[in-house]
């Protein structure tokens, strides 16, 4: 075997293709780059692309195919928790490695998965802090698509806001179905909620396609960022590329990376990316950076371990630290989450974000939220001897509450 295979498990068709196709391209680019540098362990890398077609059982099937048929050394893929949950048993059963690049609700830590996207504390909480401090927001609309990530994030945020003294009547929680396209009433409701004489902001965990009509409606109904700012966790440069952002200037997003980050690493990355895709306008976004970090971490860990054998890589990757694109280093923590800076950006008329705030240091991804009653006692540490994803510090046992 003279190549090392790397699996790419991103939907290229169906509802998720809109987001995931880019990640496949970025992975192809990273593999190509690495091969130019001579590959890994003296072997060339070979990308194996499959299409799980936004279909969750197909994700599991393709994961199994990658691991058993193609015998890939690691898999980079998935978007949304359900796809990850669907492949998780497969990776655990066949002891594969999965790098998951998208922000998620936390509440999970698997030995075989590396979470390079943001946990809620690396995105949601700093964003809310920013609004409360800088914009003096007192009233909150938590608007989300009805699925687990928004539900959990909003649960966490609700608990967090209440712990900061926000009253229940100052929090409005609203859920909409996937792909919700008619936002007239909800935007009007937000307007109404915002006319109670207190500074109001919207924290949006609205997912995917639903964002474009949402923002179009915001623009049409004239909700300006100076009146009611909206901070989003799922809206990045790719999503904005489909909207005329002029009416949206000043609305916010919280990520760990923006294309507008001005560091040499980032500029270099953008240049390579635009050259690779032969499109000088092609944008970059946060999950792409997550894959860059994850991929580099894997390469480093493999080189450290001298093998691609999963167990060895799992051991060697913890503590590995690689440059991120925003001018610092990200490190893989024992809980398989990574350290990241948190950036807040304001939408500009060119579809980019102006970074208006950046955490001074790096934030460690917190897999078990401190604001949920059942998880605050849990920690995860995959190093020997603990090697446990849900260690209960109260009972001192691995396995949740431990009954």
């Amino acid at each position, binding site marked *: 075997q003279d190549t090392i295979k790397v699996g790419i498990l991103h939907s*290229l*068709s*169906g*509802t998720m*293709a*809109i*987001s995931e*196709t*880019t990640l496949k391209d970025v992975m192809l680019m990273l593999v190509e780059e690495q091969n130019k540098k001579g590959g890994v362990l003296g072997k060339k890398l070979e990308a194996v692309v499959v299409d799980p077609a936004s279909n969750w059982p197909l994700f599991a099937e393709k994961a199994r195919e990658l691991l058993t048929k193609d015998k890939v050394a690691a898999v980079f893929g998935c978007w949304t928790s359900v796809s990850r949950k669907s492949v998780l048993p497969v990776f655990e059963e066949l002891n594969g490695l999965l790098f998951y690049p998208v922000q998620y609700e936390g509440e999970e830590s698997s030995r075989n998965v590396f979470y390079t996207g943001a946990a809620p504390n690396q995105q949601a909480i700093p964003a809310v802090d920013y609004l409360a401090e*800088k*914009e003096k927001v007192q009233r909150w609309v938590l608007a989300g698509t*009805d699925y687990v990530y928004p539900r959990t994030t909003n649960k966490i945020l609700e608990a967090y806001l209440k712990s900061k003294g926000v009253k229940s009547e100052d929090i409005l929680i*609203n*859920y*909409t*179905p996937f*792909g*919700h*396209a*008619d936002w*007239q*009433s*909800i935007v*009007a*409701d937000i*307007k*109404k909620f*915002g*006319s*109670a*004489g*207190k500074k109001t902001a919207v924290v949006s965990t609205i997912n995917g*396609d639903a964002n*474009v*009509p949402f923002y*179009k*409606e915001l*623009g*049409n*109904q*004239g909700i300006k*960022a*100076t*009146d009611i*700012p909206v901070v989003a966790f799922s809206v990045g440069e*790719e*999503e904005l*590329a*489909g*909207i*005329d952002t002029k*009416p949206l200037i*000043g609305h916010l997003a919280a990520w760990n990376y923006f294309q507008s980050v001005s560091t040499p690493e980032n500029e270099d990355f953008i240049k390579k990316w635009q050259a690779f895709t032969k499109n000088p306008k092609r944008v970059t976004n946060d999950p792409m950076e997550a894959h860059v970090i994850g991929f580099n971490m894997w390469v480093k860990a493999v080189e450290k371990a001298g093998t691609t054998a999963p167990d060895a890589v799992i051991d060697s990757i913890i503590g590995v630290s690689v440059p991120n694109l925003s001018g610092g280093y990200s490190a893989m923590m024992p809980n398989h989450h990574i350290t990241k800076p948190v950036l807040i950006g*304001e939408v*500009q*008329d060119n579809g980019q974000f*102006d970074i*208006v705030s950046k955490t001074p240091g790096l934030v460690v991804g917190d897999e078990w939220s401190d604001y949920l009653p059942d998880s605050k006692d849990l920690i995860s540490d995959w190093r020997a001897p603990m090697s446990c994803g849900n260690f209960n510090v109260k009972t001192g046992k691995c396995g949740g509450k431990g009954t």
Partner: protein
Amino acid sequence: MRCTIRRLLIAAALLIAALPPLAAYAADLPALVRGLGVSNYDELDKAIAKLAETGDPAVAPVLEALQAGDLNLRKSDGAVVVAKRAGSGWDLFDPLTGAALGPAERSAVERIRINNALRRSLGAALGALTLMSPDPAVRRSAAEAVFKSRDPAGIEILDRAIAKETDAGIRTAMQRARAAAVLNTDAPEAEKLAAIEIIAARGDRDGLGLLNTVVNATAPDAVKAAAREAIGAIEHRLALWAAAQNLWYGLSLGSVLLLAAIGLAVTFGVMGVINMAHGEMVMIGAYSTFMVQEMFRAYAPGLFDLSILVALPVAFVVAGGIGIIIERGIIRWLYGRPLETLLATWGLSLMLQQAVRSLFGPSNREVGAPSWMSGAFELGGLTITYGRLWIVVFAFAVFAALLVALRRTSFGLQIRAVTQNRRMASAMGIRTPQVDALTFGLGSGIAGLAGVALSQIDNVSPNLGQGYIIDSFMVVVFGGVGNLWGTLVGALTLGTINKFLEPYAGAVLGKILVLIFIILFIQRRPRGLFALRGRAVEA
């Protein structure tokens, strides 16, 4: 802290704006402008304050440039300049005088960034500076800006402006701004009560928000009571309008459904093709719009507002043409086997999606709104967005045109004859292949038209069509297959029901309830709302 600074500076600005500008102040301006060249938001805020303090109307263009993001820092010497795009670099101008400073490299300057807080400060400062502007539109927005900033220091200048104002509408706006400011002071009770009255007369959400702050803040009981009463009145008024607003939302959602469904009412309703590729025709219409707009962006950016009008015929022809090709290539072999059209058109829809994905990429494409379709206006207590209004108008226009085409022309007669009995129609001398192709093309073309409209409110992505196909079938079937009026009434009914349920049940449950309603309704009327009856159908 910042609030007090702003209040001070606006007070100063207003005071001075009223006086003839003094040379002494003017002399400081370039230095103050230079002071904008900082990268820290707090310092920038202070610099803006200092600049506004001068009250010099010459400052207004500088602040406007900052607001628009045109103000830059020249890296070589730290000068603050206005930079305008010129080729790959910039043309620089002096922000105060407007004098040209020559070209510059792209990287020679750095934009002075602002955030929301600064945007608010700028709005307030500019509002005060421009209250006396000769341009009525500027004065009006200045009054709105002061209303929002509610700065007590503005009262005096407002008084003067009000005295000079000739336009009644703007004067009212100024009076309201003044009242808003008064409520933010320690003015005597009587004055505040008068102010509350003025605000109450405004009767909208903004007024409500303002009154709510009065109630939340410390104020004499009488004032609070008056404010509460005014709030009650406004809320009552708004509640009344809310029903009308819901009706409007329902109408507008209904017309979106109508647009999406109406092409299907032809291909499925009239021709009986279970057209699963209908959504993709809508998508093709949306992408045609995108293409047309790209052309405009590239060759005639000044005429961008016309792009949608050009997109309409283009989308109709493109989608219709593709429809005709599909009919000639595939559908025509399937007449008499309606169920198989499901299979073929499903396959087609997969292929069309992938084709668009391969051609245009998987992500969203930007379709802009022409200026006449953006923004909103108030009609009584209703907020009506132009985009939606045009979509409603457009949907009805398309419907009427189609109705005329099918009911009043011989082509319409032939379409119906062919779909009811193809062989017999042929024996009557009707060129069935032509009619079939044109009918399918017509349905597809209308779907393309719908795509133009939907591109204004939804994603333009390869998945666009998928979002509408189910709703479209629901509408056509609910209304009664083969009946155009049914499609119209069905779309509006479902839209309205949805919008009236949404506030109570939430968007998700609301949608579920609508679906259950459809299921139950079909039990009552097994052939839809406008069922065809009689032996003709039962046979």
